[in-house]
């Protein structure tokens, strides 16, 4: 207890006795207020801990909400690629447009020998007779 861990001097012993007596004499009002302060501190510590428990209790709901959001986002991103089924005539019209826009198609027409078209007609006729 002494500065160099020597046995207590008389002064230290007596001072401790006097100080402890002073603690014993603390009045009831002060004791009561200290008691209230302690309980307030413990409740504050408990209140600080509660939100974590509350957040754990809400975990399933939060998880479900996150999953629903994820599905919604995935569907939303998929929508532009999700083309409506085209009718047969519409598909061929689009393909014709592609052919017309294609400069190679024009080259075939301009070459003038018509061999490609004859071949194409023959292919078509064979297909119809087989089908």
């Amino acid at each position, binding site marked *: 207890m002494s500065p160099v*861990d020597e046995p207590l001097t*008389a*002064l230290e012993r007596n001072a401790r006795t006097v100080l402890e007596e002073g603690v014993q004499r*603390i009045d009831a*009002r002060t*004791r009561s207020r200290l008691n209230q302060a302690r309980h307030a501190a413990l409740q504050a510590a408990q209140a600080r801990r509660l939100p974590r428990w509350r957040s754990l209790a809400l975990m399933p709901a939060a998880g479900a909400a996150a999953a629903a959001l994820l599905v919604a986002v995935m569907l939303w991103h998929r929508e532009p690629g999700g083309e409506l089924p085209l009718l047969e005539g519409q598909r061929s019209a689009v393909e014709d447009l592609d052919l017309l826009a294609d400069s190679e198609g024009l080259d075939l027409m301009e070459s003038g020998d018509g061999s490609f078209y004859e071949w194409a007609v023959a292919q078509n006729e064979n297909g119809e007779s087989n089908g």
Partner: protein
Amino acid sequence: MPAALHGDVTLTDSSAQSRARALNQFLAGVELKAFKIAQAALRHEDDALDAVQDAMLQLARAYAGRPAQEWKPLFYRILENRIRDMQRRRTVRGRVIAWLPFRGEEDEDDPDPLSQAPSPEPQPVKRLELDEAMGALEQALNALPRRQQQAFLLRTLEGMDVAETAAAMGCSEGSVKTHYFRALQSLRAQLGELYL
């Protein structure tokens, strides 16, 4: 006062509940001595109560999860910081008030009947001796520089060892020994051996 008489805080988790109980027991064990230490430093009962309350709150909020053996130095470190803040604020307030032309006396409430309630007391003669010794010691402690007073009270009243005192005071163990030694020298010069 035993901790069981101080009531408990209801918690859902058993480990949290046992920790709260341990914290309650710790605070119940230090609150009276902490109040006396704060009172010696601040020389004002309400300020001392506020300082102890703040220290309790901060310990419970921020350090309840720390190992229980660390609570005491942490608590007294927090208390010391709080005391220092209050002393600084008081110094500033004192300077401001000193400039005011008309200042009333400090509000003096009627004595609270509870505060007059008797505590368990020793025999009259012994009590008289203790009263005198207490008054002399209080006066001598008030005359000490703050760090010496703190080192002396933490070691003598709270029974902390040098390492704990150093942690509570935020200084080296060597400084604690120096402050304590000087405090003893001053007290001995004023009180002799404080015979009871």
